[in-house]
């Protein structure tokens, strides 16, 4: 694991393996999810991999009626919207993710601060496995 570069490609490989991974600066302790190769806080430290527990809470969200083509292909449309959000992990970093298990047709029922747990959505795309990061209420 230590061999993998701190890159988006590694991040996605880990997601395929159902692991939510970030990088932590060995100098200033800053945490980055997805991982960064350069610490933008102190510009000095080396990075080390760290696995997230996958627990967090909702810090912002939207319920999308008109989505991009890959979401339309999954069956989402004006009458069947989906929720995307930013999740604050218990380790402190934030990630963009799909939010499942909420009611996007009634967005007023979705509350910021909602406790969430990670869920990995595996999709076969062009013969390769792609994993989307999602969360659902804990």
């Amino acid at each position: 694991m230590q061999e993998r570069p701190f890159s988006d490609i590694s991040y996605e490989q880990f997601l395929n393996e159902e692991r939510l991974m970030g990088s932590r600066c060995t100098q200033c302790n800053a945490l980055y999810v997805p991982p960064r190769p350069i610490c933008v806080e102190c510009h000095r430290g080396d990075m080390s991999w760290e696995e997230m527990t996958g627990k967090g809470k909702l810090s912002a969200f939207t319920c999308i009626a008109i989505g991009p083509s890959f979401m339309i292909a999954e069956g989402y449309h004006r009458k069947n919207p989906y929720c995307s959000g930013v999740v604050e992990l218990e380790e402190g970093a934030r990630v963009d993710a799909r939010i499942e298990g909420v009611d996007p047709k009634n967005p007023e029922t979705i509350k910021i601060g909602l406790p969430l747990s990670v869920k990995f959505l595996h999709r076969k795309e062009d013969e390769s496995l792609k994993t989307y990061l999602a969360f659902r209420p804990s």
Partner: protein
Amino acid sequence: MVKKRKLGRGVAIVGAGMSKFGMFKDKDSKDLFTEAFNEMTASVNKGIDPNDIDALYLGNFSNDFFMHQSHWGPIIADIIGTVPKPATRTEGACASSALAFREGIFAIASGFYDIVLVGGLEEMSKRTTEEVAEGLALATVPYEGRAGFTFPGVFGAIATAYFEKYGANREHLMNVTIKSHNNAPLNPKAQFKLTIRDMMNVKVESAKKKGLPVTEWIDEKDFLRDPRANPVVAWPMHLYDCCPISDGASCMLLVAEEIAKNFTDAPIYVAGIGQGSGRGLHACKDFTYFEATRYAAQEAYGMSNLKPEDIQFAEVHDCFSIAELLHIEDLGFFEPGEGYKAVADGLTRLNGTKPINTSGGLKCKGHPVGATGISQLYEVWTQLRGKAGKRQVPIDDLRVGGAHNLGGTGGTCTFTILERR
């Protein structure tokens, strides 16, 4: 603290033009730029010989995607007749032409050129709505796209965070929309020239004519609350929270300050410029402000020795209604969390203490992305010269105005302060 900066020599705007904004089946980018260029030359009251233009800087986000044609600098230089003078394209998503404006300023301030044309263009309406959405989404950050975020989606998420932190709600966003629609009919170049009230009347009349059941809305907010009239796009962003798909072009003639009076009796001067950059939503410490705008504002205020209270009116980048609230706070016009109250109190109306988006804003004037930055400066220039007609800001001694342009989801922001001396 942002470093205090200054220009090597002053720069003045001596002419400007913009095409009508809208969806044009029968006009292309070259036609639209020609329209803007002809208005610009006519506005230089002592005349400009295009052969004297030293260089062109042109902002364009993605005609590559929208029109399958890139490399617009020399194409435009050719139609206006400045070939073989240099032509350079700038790209900063929806802030592309604000970057062209800045490049023009730097080129003159450095002493390298004396007379520079800056402009912007975008031609979007020949693509379907879905294609345009996909094109614009190219300017979000990769992680957002994978999580299903669209452009309106990112601003929707920002709105939920703003609501949560400051206790605002959708009704406050409606105030922004209603205000922009009240200004737009006064702007002959605007894409939408109807107030929300006009829009309601049109719908009622059309239903009556067709013999369909007539919906009578109590007021503008009742109309905006009706999901049939104002459907959700990316909650809480609804149709009337979002700017339209537009075609358009804009340009400005910049010259060294010391020769400005050779061109016009009414030069407008560049008092302060600023530009900042930002990162994706997940990497922001707080979703209720744009770091890039705050940086740009500090730079512009520092350079001009002016304060937020000195800016008498401003154009800000209201790609979505929520964005206008963040900008008027980030630019220091109102305290964080107070912007929505100021709008509710009418302070940002045309006759308010701080008129915002007198042009109708992106929401109503239209948003041909690469043309927008300079079209905002065009509005400020028009107001400062007292030529804004029915939408003229009713302040006797109008001297200082600002223009704020935002690219993508806050990745590039600029703030420019213009003054009449």
